[in-house]
Structures are given as structure tokens and as C-alpha cells.
């Protein structure tokens, strides 16, 4: 991987961390999209040869440190997410936008289920399926984020 690629990926991860801690009103907190998960799906399906489970795990550890969650929570969830994106990236590239949106919902949903499982171990219970809201908002955000990011990648010759 070229140095410029590495820089660009680092910048996107940094921005996603900013968005993760951005202050939101209390009642909107559940609807915050899972920005790091979105980026993991994007980068892993974009560069499956170089970025994978380990990369996602490191981003997860970073997110744990930033949000103050118990160490390993997001790391585990993002590693699982990266694994499923690695398995399916060849198919998802051929998906049309609606299919992609649905698939992102499923992937981030898996991510949320793992995160919710760890929360459950800590004794923090969530009413019903509330924990799936971020999956929905992330999926809706996907068409607004992925194509522009792809265009920037093309301009910067990132492959």
C-alpha cells in the first residue's frame, strides 16, 4: 500500500471517530449511524487484499478507547463485520444500490448484535430491537457516503 493511501484511510478513520463522539441530543443518541462500521465495510470491500479482520480490530480498539467502552467491545464487533465483508465483497460489488443498502443493513445489524451481546454481558439491557436503529441509519447513509468516497479514491488513485 502506498503512503498516500495509508494517509487517506487514516484521515477517514479520524473523521469517523469525530462523528462518533459528536454531541447529539439525548433522544437522538440511538439513531447515530455506526460511522466506523460504514468505513470498515467500504475499505474492506475496496481493498480486500490489504485490509481485513486485523485492520477492523485495530479500528475497534481505537473506538473503544475513544468512547470509553469496555475494551474489546467494538473490536470484536468490527472484526466480525470485516470477516463477513471479506466473504462477500465479490458479490456486493455487483449489487445495485438498493441491494447494497439492504446488505449494509444486514452487515451493520450483525455488528450491532455482537455489540449488544457484549452490553448484555455487562448487564446493560436494551428494550426490544432498539439496538438495531444504527443499522438502519447507517444503511440509509451508505448511498450518500460510498459513491462520493469512491470518486475521491479514483481521483487519488487509491486501489
Amino acid at each position: 500500500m502506498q503512503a498516500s493511501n495509508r494517509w487517506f484511510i487514516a484521515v477517514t478513520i479520524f473523521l469517523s471517530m469525530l462523528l462518533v463522539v459528536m454531541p447529539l441530543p439525548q433522544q437522538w443518541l440511538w439513531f447515530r449511524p455506526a460511522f466506523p462500521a460504514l468505513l470498515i465495510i467500504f475499505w474492506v470491500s475496496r481493498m480486500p487484499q490489504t485490509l481485513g479482520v486485523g485492520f477492523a480490530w485495530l479500528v475497534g480498539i481505537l473506538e473503544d478507547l475513544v468512547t470509553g467502552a469496555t475494551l474489546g467491545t467494538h473490536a470484536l464487533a468490527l472484526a466480525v463485520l470485516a470477516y463477513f465483508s471479506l466473504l462477500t465483497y465479490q458479490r456486493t460489488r455487483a449489487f445495485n444500490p438498493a441491494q447494497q443498502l439492504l446488505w449494509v443493513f444486514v452487515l451493520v445489524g450483525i455488528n450491532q448484535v455482537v455489540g449488544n451481546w457484549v452490553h448484555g454481558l455487562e448487564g446493560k439491557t436494551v428494550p426490544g430491537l432498539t439496538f438495531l436503529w444504527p443499522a438502519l441509519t447507517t444503511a440509509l447513509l451508505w448511498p450518500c457516503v460510498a459513491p462520493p468516497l469512491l470518486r475521491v479514491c479514483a481521483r487519488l488513485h487509491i486501489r
Partner: protein
Amino acid sequence: MKPLFTRGPSPESRLIALGILSIALFAVSYYTDWFQSTRERLFDVVAPLYWITGAPERVGDWAGEQFRSREELLEENDRLKRRVLLLEHRSQLLAAVKAENTQLKELMNSAEMVDDRVLVAQIIGVSPDPLEHVLLIDKGRNDGIDVGTPVMDAGGLLGQVIEAGDSFSRILLITDSSHAIPVQVLRNSMRAVAEGTGDLYRLKLRHLANTSDIREGDILLSSGLGGRFPAGYPVGEVMSVTRDPGKPFAEAEVLPRGRMNRSRFVLAVIGDRGRGLASK
């Protein structure tokens, strides 16, 4: 295209290895505090993220301050002056009461009350996790804050420090569902434990005897039991008491006095560590 799995172990084995590592990390940080000091050091590195994302709000506040009219400022100044006068008057009365109290305590041979040292800190962020009530403030170990330092605002107790970096710290609010604080009723010194509910405007007193003397409007103070919080700080006000004869215990709902959602500046009570209990 390069063959996919030529370098290193396969994604499956990586996932399994990292999964086990994550669960190990999780277990270690849940059951022990081995990572506490490392986390606190790294926390100083990540806290500026919160500071950056809070910047637009601060700029808005600053602009609001800058563009206020002269009349408004004069009026506010006048109001504040009157308030200071009032508070000074009250604190003078308190000084007399305090001196008398100290004298009485000396007569009873009990430990002397120590003055609490108070530090003003600014809230720079809120935890993004909707399941926990955690605030970040811009003061840390360099300013004398330590894990367990109680934090309050003008209304009452807010919470305690759970992670203290060098210049930033994290506060767990008393309304967090994992928090509980020993309290006593101001009117009759009855003791209870106020648990957080995960709702910013509600605490709960559980396991109250059905016959206990508690009613709507009672003020709850921290009791100092447990040695974590100093005694005598206002915690909340009883909103309702549910006495169901079919149940072994009564329950009470409490409105916290501290403004969990709205405070900008908070007071960290440093000094007086661990003496709240001794002085009782």
C-alpha cells in the same frame, strides 16, 4: 488479481484469534483494573476529539455573548450583584453556624469538619453510548482530581469521577443505571440507597420498608456512608412514593437536584477525601 489468501493466516483463523483476544481483553477489563492506568493515559490523547466536536457549540455561545446589547449586560450585571449580596449575607450567617457547630463537635470529642476544596471544571463532552450517563470534564490529576472525586453543580450532586487522566476526566452520573448512592432524608435522617435508572430525570429508592416515614417533597442528602461521597450534599427530591400492600417493600421515585442535562460548569469536590464519614 493477486491470489487472495497467500499472505499470512486465513481470515477465519484471524477472526478466531482476534475474537478470543477481544473476549480476553473484555474479561480482564471487566473483572480487574489492570488497564485502568493505561486507559487513563490514553484518555488524555483521545479527549481532544470531544473538545473538537464541541467547538461549534462553544463558538455559538461565544458569539451569543459577543453580540449581546449593553442594556442586557447591564441588567444581568445588576441582577448578579444583587445575587452576590444575598449569597454573601447567607454565607456570613453560615460562618457563625459553622463556628458554633465546630465548637459543639469539639465538646463531643468528634473529628473536626474539614473544609471541602472545590474546583470549577467545564464539561467538554458526553459519552456517545446511550446506555451510560458519562460526562467528560477538562480537569484531571494535574488539578487534584482522582478516581472517586465527587462532582456537583449548583443544584446538587452530579456524580463521581471514574477515570482521571492528567488533564481530562470522565464522570459517571448518579442517574446511570449502574450507579447507586447512599442518601438520607433531610427531615428525619432516614437512610436509603438511591439507584440510577438510566433516565436523566429519575432516581429510585428501592427496598424501603412499607412503614418507613418518607413522603412526597422530601429532600435527600448524601449520607456519607460508604466513604465515597461527602455527607450533606443535596441529591434529589422525592417525587412519589408507591406503597403496595401486596409487595414487601415500598418504592420511591426521586428527581435529581443536579441538572444532569444542562450544566455547563461543574464543581469537583477535592480535598476532604475519605473524611466525610469520619466527621459524622
